[in-house]
């Protein structure tokens, strides 16, 4: 996937200011930044839900899976009914087999007949991701996937997502404002602030940049140092 010069305006406000992004197969890219940085806007443009005012995207049509921050599924249907519905809508040759595969992948086989509304937020998010995977995407976009999950659920989620990238070669682009999470699971970090891309590189390169631009905070924890880095960049 390659995006160049993405600009998005909401009235007078510029939500994205010329953002570039290029990803390779099997990469785990974390988009980080404070609230209002433009993370969701960037992901919704990459997903094809919003159109940019300027810029271009090159992505294989129909091969970009999108998992919104709020679980996009039917809470009054069962786990199995949700998966089956989306497998049918994706026109899978054998929707039942695809459903079974996703039940296995999410570890929810035993809870297939349960109404989704009765599941925990973490389990709902796993189904949400599984639905996104039903499109068999080359690129998977996750918008703040760990919000509202407890530490155990969060660990299981990242184990699951990491396996997608490492085992299936799926490119995963996820947004988060948890810098620790981005550093731990993101192979590459894209830092956004006020719609502007401030940094694009590995976690180690970000640490180096923080040390270089905000030396007074270099000895503190990474989150504090990162905030100081943003401050030095005028955000």
């Amino acid at each position, binding site marked *: 996937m390659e995006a160049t010069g993405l600009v998005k305006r909401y009235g007078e406000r510029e939500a994205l200011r010329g953002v570039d992004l290029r990803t390779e197969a099997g990469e785990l890219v974390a988009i980080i930044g404070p609230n209002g940085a433009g993370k969701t806007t960037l992901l919704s443009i990459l*997903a*094809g839900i*919003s159109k940019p005012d300027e810029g271009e995207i090159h992505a294989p049509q129909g091969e970009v899976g999108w998992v919104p921050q709020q679980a*996009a599924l039917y*809470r*009054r249907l069962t786990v199995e*009914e949700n998966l089956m519905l989306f497998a049918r*809508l994706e026109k899978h040759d054998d929707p039942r087999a695809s459903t079974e595969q996703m039940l296995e992948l999410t570890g929810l086989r035993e809870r297939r007949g349960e109404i989704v509304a009765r599941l925990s937020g973490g389990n709902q998010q796993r189904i949400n991701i599984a639905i996104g995977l039903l499109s068999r995407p080359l690129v998977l976009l996750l918008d703040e996937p760990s919000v509202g999950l407890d530490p155990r659920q969060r660990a299981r989620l990242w184990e699951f997502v990491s396996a997608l990238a490492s085992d299936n070669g799926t490119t995963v682009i996820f947004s988060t404002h948890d810098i620790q999470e981005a550093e731990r699971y993101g192979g590459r970090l894209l830092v956004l602030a006020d719609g502007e891309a401030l940094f694009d590189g590995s976690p180690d390169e970000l640490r180096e940049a923080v040390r270089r631009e905000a030396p007074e905070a270099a000895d503190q924890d990474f989150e504090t140092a990162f905030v100081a880095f943003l401050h030095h960049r005028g955000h």
Partner: protein
Amino acid sequence: MRWLLLKDLQILRRSPLQAFLLVAWPVLLAVLVGLAISGSPSKPRIAFLNDVPSDARVSVGTSQLPKIGVSDRICERVECVHVKSRAEAVDEVRSGDVLAALILPADLVDRINSLSTPSPTTPKVEVIVNEEDPVKARLVNDRIDSLLTQANLVIARRIATEGGKFLNLVLDGGQFTVIGQTIQILGLRNSARILQALRPALPPGPLRDSIDQVIQFTTLARANLGTAGPLLTRLTQPIAVDKQVVNASTPPLEVFAIAVAATFTLAFVTVLLVAGSLALEREENAFPRLTRGLVSRSALLTEKVALGVAVGLVVTVLMLAGLSLFVPLHWSRFGLWLAAIVAGGAALGAAGAALGAAAREVRAVSLLAFMVTLPIAFLSLIPSGTVGPGLYDAVKVLTALFPFKPALQAMTGALDPGGPSIAAALGHLAILIAAYGLLARFALRRFASV
């Protein structure tokens, strides 16, 4: 599209209370509306106290009219609840068991008879009404005015008939009974004949001239009094009604009531279901996911309208089948019923889709659907001539913009074998389907924002 339809039916099945309310509430509402229209009593219940002595008679001159039977005539036109006292009449009205009470006082006939004496007194009847409700008060006033007009008319006709008999006696002569004695009245006609027979026997001169004057008077009097008879009759009802029906398409009341009930059901089921299920796509955040290539927006709209039509069709047909147990319906016209229900349901569903696309939450959409559908449905039932012309024109335009009225017209035409063709109503509905479909499609653009 069929998988989405199946999903919506699964969701509907998964919410039994919601599904029950969606079906039961419109049916209940529809039955109540139907009963209110068809069940308005043709004979209003009136408490009736007749204190007039049974032997009292209205007199004309020195003779008494035969018993008029005003009481019987009143009770022909209303359902009389006979009471024994004024207090009982008041209680009946206060409790709401009767619309009003009518009391004929004991001196009513005496007062009527006094009208032909040097010291007349006004005859009065007492009417007791409960005016807690202005609409009911107006209805009661109209009913009582009508009843009294009818009663006055009966008395006037009887007086005119008796007066006509006296007039004929003066003109043609005959026997007249007064205080038990029969008197022979000569009459103008016989008087003139006798005088004309006598005239040739008289020599010319003042006496013969006088006889000629009397003969001329009797001739003129006969001619003029002859016109008084019909005039007297006409006075009781000077204006006759010549009713010309210009719109002969009025259906029987029962058929219209059933059409109203069925259209109410169809409207609420389709509008609420389509609006609600469309809003649910947004509430569940599923809309962006669906429209990222899985389903086109137009297909999604079509699926929602099809859902509304399918459920509306089942509920409405079940309702008609139930009502046909009480009122005979023409099942041979089932094809027309289907056409009316499908077209009406599609137009109402398209309107529901436009409403559903306008709000974010199911609850807000449901409220909006009620707020729009209910007043429009009631406005659609306002008949011409019952409100001012300007207001009626405004109501006509407003109701033409929403599918309820054309759906009602189609349903009425489909149910009534003597009714007009439903083609015009179907054409109107087709235009509204297209218009609301476009509106909903345009409104769906707002759905895309995340």
